[in-house]
């Protein structure tokens, strides 16, 4: 599934959608990394508003993008996370790595 990416030097936002699992995360990762490596933004925002399901493959996806942004001296933000996805993220302690905004909060 193509990821819509709003490219901006200060803030680049990737709008994720559908289901994030081992199968889909490979393609999502490639698209985000291509944009980030090309723009080198100060901040990367992963928007989960359109995500209906995520397993631990999504943790790998967020952690990997955190490392990428960290290596470039940038920041990572995660927003629009629903309750079940938040449960998986909290289990991994992602809320300690990046600022996470929940859906409707």
């Amino acid at each position, binding site marked *: 599934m193509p990821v819509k990416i709003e490219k901006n030097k200060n803030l680049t936002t990737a709008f994720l959608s559908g289901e994030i*699992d*081992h199968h889909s995360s490979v393609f999502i990762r490639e698209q985000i990394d291509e944009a980030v490596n090309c723009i080198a933004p100060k901040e990367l925002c992963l928007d989960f508003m359109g995500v209906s399901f*995520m397993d631990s493959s999504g943790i790998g996806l967020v952690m990997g993008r955190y490392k990428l942004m960290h290596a470039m001296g940038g920041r990572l933000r995660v927003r629009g996370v629903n309750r079940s996805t938040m449960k998986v993220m909290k289990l991994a302690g992602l809320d300690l790595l990046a600022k996470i905004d929940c859906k409707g909060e």
Partner: protein
Amino acid sequence: MKAINEMKLTLESHSVNESFSRVAVSAFVAGLDPTIEEISDIKTAVSEAVTNCIVHAYKNTVGRIYIWVGIFADQTVKIRIRDRGCGIADIHKAMTPLFSSEPEERAGLGFAVMQSFCDKITVRSTLGKGTTVTLIKKIESKERC
């Protein structure tokens, strides 16, 4: 105790089947009228177990994944996910959070998610023969009077 309803599903270990497997199991369990959170927990745990079969058990090959789901009279769901893949040398190590034999973008949290989202999980494995993961979860939401 005998299941009051059961189903079996056999899949090839293509990653595209991860989505189908979790949706099929959750649709079968939906008859118990679970909450959205319970369904989401089951979907996530099944997804982790099936992904393990694909990524680890049948790494670089394609094999079959055997799923059995039983529903019991006390609203308990038992999900058994079995492969005939490489087996796990050290189950304790494999279940340690953040450990992964495939560190490239794998968080090493598959078993941690299964443990946290189910009431009970058992893992049996024989090197060279395969692994069986059993997930047990009680659907609490709407117990009938």
